[in-house]
């Protein structure tokens, strides 16, 4: 009884606590180490869809470089892609342009900075911290997908399909229109209501929620909530895929394309400087529609009166000439597989060769078979959001421009391969081909947030950030040593270990380090000493009325509750920050939270271990505190 109680209060640590500390030190040093080694200039070669790299590809890359006399530092293969490290960035740049030429459209050749982590560290999974865009430079976009438009598009599609079904079933109707959030079907004969309902339910199961209005002979057909949510999900997925393809065209080494919330997409392109080009490619929400020209009506009259003939819609050419097109779409940008720009060998004018998918090809064949000699138009649809001030209030207005870029006579029937001509310049043909090739978007998108950091700014942020960490850290070390002497030095060792552990944890989690994140680390350094200050002040206080050993023991024990309480509340604030913050704020919250947890460990367990070694149960007369 007596013995065991004495053990509780004695200032020695069991062996396992020292072992725990030793393990923590070894692990944190190992995983923090990769950050010391810097980067190699590298070129990353990844295959485009459906292409697979083999030994031949590797040989081709080697010979291409050997011919130019460039010796790569290292040639690595990671799953599907190759990573070539170079000795200098001159080599890197030259290699990229050579390889881009050699690989053609089979691969995306991008510049990259590959961490120069030694093999030994890499084998245990140690990697340097992932630097945020504000530290490495690059572009961050937040895209907003127009879900209302996606839903509207779905309704439009069902208008066409329903009409076909009704025709087949010989149900006569006065009109079928897309209203706000429903389709409105007006029947000619109200007695056909029952039959119509059963036909709709049979042909489109689990799609609509029909609401018949017997009196007026109308059926309103709103889409089921489930169908709408699926439409939204699909639109988002399709847009992400499309963005990924478009970004591959840009040649970015580590692009990040991620869903955020239920209608936003985050795009981060590290190292991209030409934001204008990036924006053009990402932001232009252009789609194509192929429609037949309505030859019967008079477009000029339609423009004057504002009424288009039944089944037709009024459009304009880019120069403002009116033209009437049929309401039904033959194929849309969704069906486009490939598009190449080139020069028409006969006319010498720029053209785009288009390849459609199977379904698109079938529809095109069916249409062109019956319409040889008629004209087919290509409608280029561009979406833009304008902010307009109206009566002092800022109102957002969505403008959709629909330009007919080309209306050409169908020379013969064709299916999935054809050419679009009548483009203004080779540049326009190239841009159009690029947009078509990358696939069309399921729903229009707009950029709602952009953050671009130039490379010099990124480097400055790194320098300033690290310098402020070092200066702040040094100041704290000096003050602690000055105020608490030996105990202060012990606390400083713990503080250093704390910093190493934070870096190790951030590297291990591959959390993104941003400038606010660095600020969080700096703040942690300032606050981490709090635990030690609390302990040391308590020891001083206890020394007034108890022996040295008791004072040390009581100092640690009594301060612990306070430290825990205080840190939990700070952690609470950090968690709130994390759950509500976006990008940079999250980085700050992460480093702050990690810092709080690690500082509790190092300040309590770490310093106690050292203090016990120095003073624990030894006949000391005076503490250097």
């Amino acid at each position, binding site marked *: 009884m007596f013995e065991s109680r004495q053990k509780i209060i004695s200032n020695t640590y069991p062996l396992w606590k020292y072992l725990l500390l030793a393990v923590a030190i070894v692990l944190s040093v190992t995983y923090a180490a990769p950050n010391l080694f810097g980067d190699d200039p590298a070129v990353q070669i990844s295959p485009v869809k459906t292409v697979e790299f083999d030994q031949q590809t590797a040989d081709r890359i080697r010979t291409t470089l050997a011919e130019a006399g460039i010796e790569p530092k290292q040639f690595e293969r990671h799953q599907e892609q190759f990573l070539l490290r170079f000795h200098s960035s001159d080599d890197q740049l030259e290699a990229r342009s050579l390889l881009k030429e050699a690989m053609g459209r089979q691969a995306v050749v991008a510049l990259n900075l590959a961490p120069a982590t030694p093999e030994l560290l890499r084998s245990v999974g140690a990697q340097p911290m992932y630097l945020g865009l504000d530290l490495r430079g690059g572009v961050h976009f937040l895209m907003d997908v127009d879900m209302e438009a996606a839903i509207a598009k779905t309704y439009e599609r069902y208008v066409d399909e329903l009409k076909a079904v009704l025709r087949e079933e010989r149900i006569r109707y006065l009109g079928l229109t897309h209203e706000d959030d429903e389709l409105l079907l007006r029947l000619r004969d109200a007695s056909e209501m029952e039959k119509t309902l059963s036909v709709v339910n049979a042909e489109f199961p689990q799609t609509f929620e029909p609401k018949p209005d017997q009196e007026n002979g109308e059926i309103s057909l709103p889409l089921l909530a489930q169908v709408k949510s699926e439409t939204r999900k699909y639109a988002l997925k399709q847009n992400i895929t499309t963005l990924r393809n478009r970004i591959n065209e840009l040649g970015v080494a580590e692009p990040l394309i991620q869903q955020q919330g239920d209608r936003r997409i985050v795009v981060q392109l590290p190292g991209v400087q030409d934001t204008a080009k990036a924006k053009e490619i990402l932001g232009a929400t252009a789609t194509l529609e192929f429609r037949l020209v309505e030859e019967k009506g008079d477009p000029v009259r339609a423009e004057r009166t504002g009424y288009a003939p039944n089944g037709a819609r009024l459009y304009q050419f880019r120069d403002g000439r009116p033209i009437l097109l049929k309401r039904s779409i033959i194929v849309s940008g969704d069906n486009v597989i490939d598009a190449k720009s080139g020069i028409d060998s006969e006319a010498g004018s720029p053209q785009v060769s288009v390849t459609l998918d199977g379904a698109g090809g079938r529809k095109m064949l069916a249409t062109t078979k019956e319409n040889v000699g008629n004209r087919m138009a290509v409608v280029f649809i561009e979406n833009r959001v304008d902010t307009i001030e109206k009566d002092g209030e800022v109102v957002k207005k969505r403008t959709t421009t629909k330009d007919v870029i080309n209306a050409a006579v169908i020379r013969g029937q064709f299916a999935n391969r054809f050419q679009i001509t009548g483009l203004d310049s080779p540049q326009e043909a190239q841009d159009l081909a690029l947009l078509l090739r990358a696939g069309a978007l399921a729903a229009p998108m707009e950029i709602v947030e952009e*953050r671009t950091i130039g490379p010099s700014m990124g480097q400055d942020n790194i320098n300033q950030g690290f310098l402020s960490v070092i200066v702040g850290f040094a*100041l704290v070390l000096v003050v602690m040593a000055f105020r608490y002497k030996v105990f202060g030095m012990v606390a400083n060792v713990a503080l250093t270990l704390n910093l190493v552990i934070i870096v190790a944890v951030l590297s291990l989690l591959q959390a993104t380090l941003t400038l606010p994140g660095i600020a969080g680390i700096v703040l942690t350094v300032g606050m981490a000493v709090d635990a030690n200050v609390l302990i040391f002040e308590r020891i001083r206080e206890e020394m007034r009325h108890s022996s040295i050993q008791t004072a040390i023991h009581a100092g640690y024990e009594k301060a612990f509750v306070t430290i825990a309480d205080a840190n939990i509340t700070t952690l609470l604030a950090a968690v709130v920050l994390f759950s509500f913050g976006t990008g940079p704020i999250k980085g700050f919250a992460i480093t702050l939270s990690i810092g709080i947890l690690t500082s509790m460990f190092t300040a309590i367990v770490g310093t106690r271990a050292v203090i016990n070694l120095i003073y624990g149960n030894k006949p000391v007369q005076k503490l250097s505190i």
Partner: protein
Amino acid sequence: MQNEQRYNFMRFRGQAMILSLLLLAASVAGLAIKGLNFGIDFTGGTIIELAYDEPADVDAIRTALLDNGYERASVQNFGSAEEVLIRIAPRPQESSAQISNQVMDMLANQHNEAFELRRVEFVGPQVGDELTEDGALSLIYALIGVLIYVALRFEFRFSLGAVAALVHDVTITIGVFAWTQVQFDLTVLAAILAVIGYSLNDTIVVFDRVRENFRTVRDGTPVDVTNLAVNQMLARTIMTSVTTLLVLAALIAIGGEVIYGFALALIVGVVVGTYSSMFVASSIALALGVSKEDLMKPVKEGEDDSAQEEELHRIFLEEEAKREAREAQAAAKK
């Protein structure tokens, strides 16, 4: 015990209250009169930062912008004479994401001096609205979380005291931003949430000691007991504030312009938070009538623990004495 009551902080409770109220009134007045200089994170708009090779002609850039119809644009030097910050309010009838490209093209055409793009930030108006809403919500949630935690851990009157101190700190920090018109952006909001964490940390440490004193100090009014706690924690409060302010000073001096507002908010918050943890939080708990009994009841077990602990101490002391005696004997033998 008496020698620890070096300063009678609680005597200045009244004056501190008046000072706090004056500061709060000034902050609210600042918010009402000048308002906050919100950054584009909240208002939406475009920021373009450029670095010229030589000192930039700010007036020429301003004229160029004006000539091209950017009436609501502000141009100023940022950090150094070579660096320029262009701020453009959300524009009607303009595809907003394209503004930065247009301005860059325009300046490249109009000026011979070479410049380099440092950064572009564009925030759409609806994103700004969402951020404002989320920001306000996060402040409220943080305060509610604190209220609950402190109420559970201590007593609801302490909890009210802590939250009142937090509202006090946050309001004054925001007030400083209103009067100085330093830009209030997302990082400043983050700093204010961090201030909540820091100031609370300070308050809790004092409360913790008040609670302990209520249990261990037998005589003395609640005011005396609280005053003792503030005195006992004084060295710690000053030491932690000093180290934190030191690193913040490093941040504000070296961290660069982007981090300036962040560091400023924290510096103000740390200073005000230190003051409020000493004067505001406990004063309010006292004013609400916190007494010894309130804290004794729920912590019966704690009391037993401390009794046990004291017993352990006694035993330990005896052992120590015995050992020291043995060592003295050993030394004497030598």
